[in-house]
């Protein structure tokens, strides 16, 4: 899809190859972790290493997306491409709006519940009701935060994927699926 055949300029190529090397190093390290600790067999090792691996992955993706953006700006932008970018921005705004609506609805429901007079014949129940309200605030915050992070992650992955498709062979990220030969059975 939208593969390009143009080559990057030498100066950019050098900068790009340096950044790609950093990203590749991160990938190689991560792959090494994976190979020495396959998911189904050494989960404990993986869990310990997950934080640096995930953040390393995020950094690598950001680096490669920056390089790919520069390449696209230099060689591949046209009205259609700008249009697609605009569409992506619009989708992000829509999703954010939806998230904010859900967030506000959550607070409205919490407010309603707080205002309701409830029966409590024991101190235990009264205390439990108060703690329930506190717990609900916590849940609202957790939901909002995780939803925002999910959207952020979605934007990053989607943008990197979109760049990969636009640039084809010029992209810094591997985009194509696992080679099928790998699953060939005798």
């Amino acid at each position: 899809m939208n593969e390009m055949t143009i080559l990057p300029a030498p100066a950019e190529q050098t900068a790009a190859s340096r950044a790609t090397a950093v990203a590749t190093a991160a990938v190689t390290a991560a792959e090494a972790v994976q190979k020495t600790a396959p998911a189904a067999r050494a989960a404990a090792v993986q869990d310990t290493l997950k934080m640096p691996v995930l953040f390393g992955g995020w950094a690598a993706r950001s680096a490669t997306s920056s390089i790919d953006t520069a390449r696209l700006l230099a060689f591949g932008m046209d009205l259609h491409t700008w249009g697609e970018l605009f569409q992506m921005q619009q989708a992000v705004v829509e999703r954010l709006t939806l998230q904010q609506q859900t967030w506000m609805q959550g607070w409205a429901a919490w407010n309603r519940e707080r205002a309701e007079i409830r029966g409590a014949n024991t101190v235990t129940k009264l205390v439990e009701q108060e703690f329930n309200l506190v717990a609900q605030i916590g849940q609202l915050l957790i939901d909002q935060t995780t939803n925002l992070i999910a959207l952020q992650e979605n934007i990053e992955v989607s943008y990197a994927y979109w760049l990969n498709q636009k640039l084809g062979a010029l992209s810094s990220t591997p985009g194509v699926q696992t080679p099928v030969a790998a699953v060939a059975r005798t």
Partner: protein
Amino acid sequence: MSNDIVQLRNYNVKKGESSISGLSSGAFMTVQLHLAHSASFAGVGVIAGGPFRCSESFRGAAPLAEDAYVQSAEYICMSPLTPQTGPSAPRLAQLAHDTAQAGAIDPLSNLKGDRVYLFTGSRDTVVYSEVVKCTHRFYELLGVASDDILFDDTVPAGHSIVTDNPEDSLLDTNQPPYINQGGFMQSHRILRHIYDGLKAPAQQTTGRLLRFDQTEFFGGEARASMGEFGYAYVPRAVEEGAPARVHVVLHGCKQGYSYVNYVYGRADVTNQAPYGNRYITTTGYNELADSNDIIVLYPQATGADGGGLQNPDGCWDWWGYTSDDPEQPDYYSRDAIQIKALHGMLSRLGG
């Protein structure tokens, strides 16, 4: 249903006339199972599901393969921002061709003449409509005739199987149990599209709902992430020897009989939701099956979080969590552990 745990047995099933339907992860698995064993099936129903091997769309999403496939699954195959950031039907169709050529799945020529029902609720915010549109294009590219495909994106439903039960959730809901009321039985639409000339559903079923031991089909391996029991509805006429067909129903995430919600990272076993039983008993499959000599098979996935298995919601595997090798995950071929188990059940029934 009696308290017995039975072994699945053989019936007088017509070979090559079986079918599958599923919701969400069950829909992704429906497409996988269909392609892996296309010789066994005559049609499918896909509610909110994406194309074959979709989760392998973008290896560059993360350095680790297992992370990249999960992220591709979530952001490209479930909630793409735009059509351009969604799955690519031509690419995945080519991948399906390559997979068939490698001998990992049945020849794709079997798909010709199969009946395909595709549904996406226009209010679905879990698996967006763009993804199901891609599944539509994917099947067309694999040679399924347009006349054999029914694609419905007109109902303002959330992420759900639609029923006409008054007690189910409002139509545009995107929450568990993902069974929403919309004034019609979606299961009936699926079966009627796959099989011509079905009789009206039974007012009162006469068959038996069986609880069977699933473990024999996956060797009790934990990585299969499948429950101890599966269920099957067998019409009385079929028990008495009438020729039958089998329809496999694959539930979605959080819908297996043993699903337990994780609250603050812990399994909330004291408030176990009875979602699974509702999927088996109230979605309308059994009534239509009863009057048309169809065995309905309800295999069950189960949740696990930790110990190397990340499937807390009890989803069917469409991104590789059951695979030993994250770099080259096999969750889609005839040898994939869940597909092997599902097809084993079908074969036992005679399909």
